[in-house]
């Protein structure tokens, strides 16, 4: 028996009573029986055996020259981390805090529709755009958030046109997104957005009763009707796939994922992103009213995902976005940037948010913390600070140093590390520091459970499920 081999970097977990799951930094994975795992780590596997060949094909062990394998793995690792190359490309801008909704989970100190106290000034807007274009990224996406940006459409237009003007010289790949409840959009506004290639992103929390509980408009009880009417109007002007939608799970959504998914199908969507609430900005009493244990979300998510798989099996093409993102990381060598789940975390280096007063935060959640006078994640202000001091300053360096799963306690050894990400803002606000404490982290619990479930599905080797998964990531 020839058993001379070099074990290459890998992580592992006891996946179930009889098997181990092994992964490596570039996202390759393999299941080994307990017996094979023991033989493998004790270097007792025969290198001519099929099982060793499988392990070697995943680059978890090798009989070749280690330097050559290092070069190959380094190339794959570089590809996986290539999202870092472009630096900040998502720039979220808050033209105003005014809003005509009263969403039950809103964490913004929103203003009434006629209260102009928190409207961005033209001077600030110009400085925001100037700062954005100092980013070295060849791609610039400006995403309008709020409040509801449609309540201050003049400022949205001002920023779009200012950015287009700057881009005549800067020549970046420039795109816009407006995140809105769509109810205030008029055909004229929609035509403007279409002309300026501004995508429209909205929120749909489920069927009428649920949507109206989660996201009531202030001036009518017919929120969902108004929403649906305007979606139809936008689609008529911009086309069938012109409005993407996001859902948020409130306490009232639990137990209703099937109906929520059905509503997305009914409304003509072919995807959903089943998203848990991040209630970290709430006062305790309020949190108790709308939040729920993460285990409840996990159970609902898994039921929802299984229901979506059944829909696909029955001929309806429909994607669950979070699973699709994770599957792309598990099944392909490609890089997938996702600001909320990457390592290093996307805070500041992939996305940043510019508040109405010119304050720049590394993430929207950093802006929420500022509501409670905690400015830890404020990088500066566009009216006072230079791009260099904000985006290459000690603060952002320090945040990023604490935002790599490769070196965070427990993450560094976690088998799901190559597919997961860090969230220093969430750790800070929920657990008191940016490093966080994985044994009690809800985010960790959620990701562990969901990734584990996906691996269980992959392990079934069910050709139909595999076909569905590949159709989601292609």
């Amino acid at each position, binding site marked *: 028996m020839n058993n001379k081999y070099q074990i290459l970097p890998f992580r592992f977990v006891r996946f179930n009573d009889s098997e181990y799951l092994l992964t490596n930094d570039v996202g390759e994975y393999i299941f080994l029986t307990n017996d094979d795992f023991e033989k493998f780590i004790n270097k007792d596997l025969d290198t001519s055996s099929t099982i060793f060949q499988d392990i070697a094909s995943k680059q978890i062990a090798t009989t070749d020259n280690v330097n050559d394998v290092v070069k190959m793995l380094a190339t794959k690792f570089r590809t996986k981390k290539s999202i870092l190359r472009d630096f900040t490309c998502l720039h979220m801008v808050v033209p105003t805090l005014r809003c005509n909704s009263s969403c039950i989970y809103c964490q913004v100190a929103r203003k009434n529709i006629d209260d102009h106290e928190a409207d961005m000034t033209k001077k600030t807007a110009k400085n925001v755009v100037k700062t954005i274009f100092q980013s070295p990224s060849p791609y610039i996406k400006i995403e309008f958030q709020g409040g509801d940006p449609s309540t201050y459409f003049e400022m949205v237009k001002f920023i779009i046109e200012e950015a287009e003007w700057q881009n005549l010289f800067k020549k970046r790949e420039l795109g816009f997104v407006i995140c809105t409840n769509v109810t205030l959009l008029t055909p004229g506004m929609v035509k403007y957005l279409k002309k300026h290639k501004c995508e429209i992103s909205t929120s749909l929390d489920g069927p009428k009763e649920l949507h109206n509980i989660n996201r009531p408009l202030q001036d009518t009880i017919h929120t969902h009707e108004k929403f649906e009417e305007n979606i139809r109007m936008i689609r008529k002007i911009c086309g069938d796939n012109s409005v993407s939608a996001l859902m948020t799970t409130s306490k009232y959504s639990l137990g209703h994922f099937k109906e929520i998914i059905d509503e997305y199908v009914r409304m003509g969507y072919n995807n959903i992103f089943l998203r848990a609430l991040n209630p970290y900005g709430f006062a305790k009493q309020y949190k108790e009213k709308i939040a729920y244990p993460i285990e409840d979300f996990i159970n609902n998510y898994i039921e929802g995902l299984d229901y979506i798989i059944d829909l696909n099996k029955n001929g309806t093409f429909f994607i669950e976005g979070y699973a699709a993102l994770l599957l792309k990381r598990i099944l392909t060598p490609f890089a997938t940037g996702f600001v909320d789940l990457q390592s290093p975390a996307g805070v500041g280096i992939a996305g940043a948010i510019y508040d109405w007063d010119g304050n720049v935060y590394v993430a929207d959640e950093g802006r929420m913390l500022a509501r409670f006078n905690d400015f830890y994640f404020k990088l500066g202000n566009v009216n006072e600070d230079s791009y260099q001091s904000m985006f290459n300053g000690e603060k952002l360096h320090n945040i990023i140093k604490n935002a790599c799963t490769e070196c965070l306690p427990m993450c560094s*050894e976690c088998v799901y590390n190559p597919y997961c990400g860090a969230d220093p803002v969430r750790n800070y606000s929920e657990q008191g520091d940016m490093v966080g404490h994985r044994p009690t982290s809800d985010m960790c619990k959620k990701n562990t459970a969901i990734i584990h479930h996906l691996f269980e599905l992959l392990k079934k080797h069910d050709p139909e499920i595999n076909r569905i998964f590949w159709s989601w990531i292609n």
Partner: protein
Amino acid sequence: MDTITFPITLIDKNKLLVKIDLRIYAKESVNAACYKFTNKFFVNQQISSESESVINVIFESKNEENISEETIKSFCNELIDQQVRYNTNLQFGHIRDLIVEEAFKPVNQ
């Protein structure tokens, strides 16, 4: 609990002591295994006064609940897993460093 008697001592209904032999497990492995249980327990580690090569780990349940046998078994398995990580990392830790160094090497070098 009575099926595992040594090296585990029940100090109180929600508190127990596990003696770990440092000739078998590295301190790093013990620490990493303990860390994973800090969601449910207050964990205290001390070198035994009887022997330098024994570490006493005291688990105290955070919610006053009795500590189940299942938990202790999981801890023992976790210790083994952590030691495997420690041992394998000694074999390939330097290779991981080389991969990262190579991946982020400036292209003009």
